[in-house]
């Protein structure tokens, strides 16, 4: 039981700490990254539970800002292998739970 409690305490501390978005991988330019991170964070905050709406929101915002054909994955567990246009990839973790991956690619 103590272990579980410790784990829970640990996780609570972790969630408290991990309030900020963490960019794990990107090849965007600085301004573009800032904007994209902003978009992702707002969308994740807005749609905490509904991942589908979250991805929809991110995609629409990014399409509006940087031109069409963005592909967005958001969720807690996923893996991916994607081909994307250079300078157009952002992979970030937000609020310690969700991870968003957005890439622009040619269909």
């Amino acid at each position, binding site marked *: 039981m103590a272990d579980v409690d410790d784990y829970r305490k640990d996780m609570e501390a*972790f969630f408290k700490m991990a309030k900020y978005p963490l960019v794990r991988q990107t090849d965007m330019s600085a301004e573009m990254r800032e904007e994209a991170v902003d978009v992702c964070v707002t969308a994740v905050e807005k749609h905490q539970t509904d991942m589908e709406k979250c991805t929809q929101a991110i995609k629409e915002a990014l399409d509006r800002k940087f031109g069409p054909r963005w592909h967005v994955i958001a969720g*807690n567990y996923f893996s991916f292998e994607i081909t994307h246009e250079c300078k157009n990839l952002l992979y970030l973790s937000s609020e310690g739970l969700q991870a968003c991956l957005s890439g622009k690619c040619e269909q």
Partner: protein
Amino acid sequence: MPGIVQKAFARKKPQIVKETAVLKPANGATYTPTVPAATLPSSPNPRAKAAVSAEEVPQQVFKEVVRPETQLPLSERELGEEIVKTLTATNPSAPKNVVHFNMRDRVFKLDPMVDQLAQHYSTDGYLLHNTSEEAKRQLEQAKAAEEAAARYQTELERVQQRREEGVGTASVGTDSEPPDDSRTLRNQFNFSDRAAQTAVQPPRDRGTATEPPPTASTTGSCSMWQIYDAYIEDQERQAAAEEQSSRPRVGGRKGGAAGGPNATAVDDATRRGGGTGPMSSAAMGRVARVLERMANQNTFADVSMDFRYWDDAADGVREAEGTLLPLWRFTAEKGRHKALTALCWSSDYLDLFAAGYGSYGFLKQCSGLVACFSLKNPSYPEFSCVTDSGVLCLDLHAQHPNLLAVGCYDGSVHVFDIRQKGVRSLYSATAQTGKHTDPVWQVRWAAAEGQRGLQFFSVSTDGRFTLWTLAKNELIHQNILELHAEPSLAADAADGWEDTSSPGSLAGGCCFDFNQGQDHLFVVGTEEGRIHECSTAHNSGYLHTYLGHHMSVYSVRWNRLHPRFFLSCGADWTVRLWDSRRAQPVLVFDLGSPVGDVAWSPHAATTFAAATEEGKVHVFDISQNSIEALCEQRVVTQGRLTKVAFNPQHPILLVGDDRGCVTCVKLSPNLRRVSQGDAKQTAKELEVAKLEKVIEVALKGMSEAG
């Protein structure tokens, strides 16, 4: 013939009858000769003869006289006998006593009416009389045919007209056929416009493929614990960064993948930082320089050999002619698009020279460059320094070979110490410290050190001839002379024109040179083409004025051995040799192009070189040829030559061009003949005597001519 229809008969050829002359009367009447025709040819009867000849002409009758065997042979007398023939209307062969039995009278009665017609020849004609039946029928037929043709024609015209009005006939096929009245048009609405029948251009596809935007592939997976790990890692990194608070944090939080190369870059930097020490040390620099020179000497081994040992073997054979051998070419990276404007050999180090880069163009001014090259390292300058304004002139001090005086286009003068690299300049004259207001065209160190320190002179087109003294911290200027445009001379030159310049206006100085013998004496060449001899001892005016050049003087040079003679060159294509005691030039050489610079040889008193804007170097030895150059050689294929300088010792010549390139050329033996001194006279004395001899001859020639 109207009314007569020609029948399609072949015309009958006239029949030629040999034995009997057939007479065909034109009027159709029958003519019967009273005498048998066979006798006629030999008959002397003129009438019969005339009749025969009349027939002969149109009918081409035979000429041969055929005598039938049965012909009666006649004697001459009988032939000559005249026989009278009468033409009668009676037929001789017609019976005269034809009788008929008269039944009423029961008696034979003489018929008085006997047919007298005799037919000798008859033929069917093809002419019809227009009143005859046959003719009438034929006429009717012709008329019917004509009417048919006319109908056809009108129909044709009608159809054509209709087609022109845009209501053409049904099909294209009928165009070539005659219109048919009998057939009605099958579809009178199905007419097609000719313009619609043009060829249809086949459609073509053309495409261009653009480069696809660069893509990259990324793989990864995301799960709760990976996110946790990433945050923990980030936290640790932040903590580490905070610990080293002295170092500013690298902007942005990088993921694990990005962290790798980042760390190595920092490592690289630190490693490099640690390694700069020994690499940039003075000892390393010296070693590197030695290595560079060795590499260059290996690269240019053949050029170095030529420099030391090459002599043009042809010079032993030919007289008064020489050649130049190009050796090295010096270019500075920073001076690539600038013109070479100044050259000066170091007097102490015989392999070292300074080159100034700038621009002569008023509209194309650029920053300047001072570079010092060594012959031992032609590929890279030993010293280089960029100046704000284009360099126009420079001079290395004779006693202090590290000091370099530089004059710039903006009127400033600078002093560099070429030992110190990277230092901009030791001294600079600015607007506050009395810099020139026009380009400085020449600077020259004073030969003797002044009481206050090192001094140099400069001349500029603002008319000032200035002495600069190197004080402890600054340059002190002193105007030695103001070059006044002399009103009287100006008026003479202008020939009656009002001298627009005020009496106090200044003449622009372009160049000057100090006399080798007397330190205070110097000549100044001006933009107007006048050359003034002046002295630093008096600043009131000119000692002499030499008139000769029509355009600005680019260079004046005193002879290196003889104190009386000097050379000048200018934009008027001429090089002039002057005796300082004569107002007129002793010798004038026209080189066919503006002469950028002229330089005396340091050893031979009669040898000098001139560089022209054509790209040619002319080397003269007036003791060998006082009219033409011994050598006239193109040194650069493109560009104009600006400066020329003799090495103080070696027989080499530096030539600069407006492309920023310095070419080193070697003089062939004929171009560097120097008198050899002996016990009685030194080489210098011999040289002076040689020059004087040449001048004497030239003056004699002038006086004879004049």
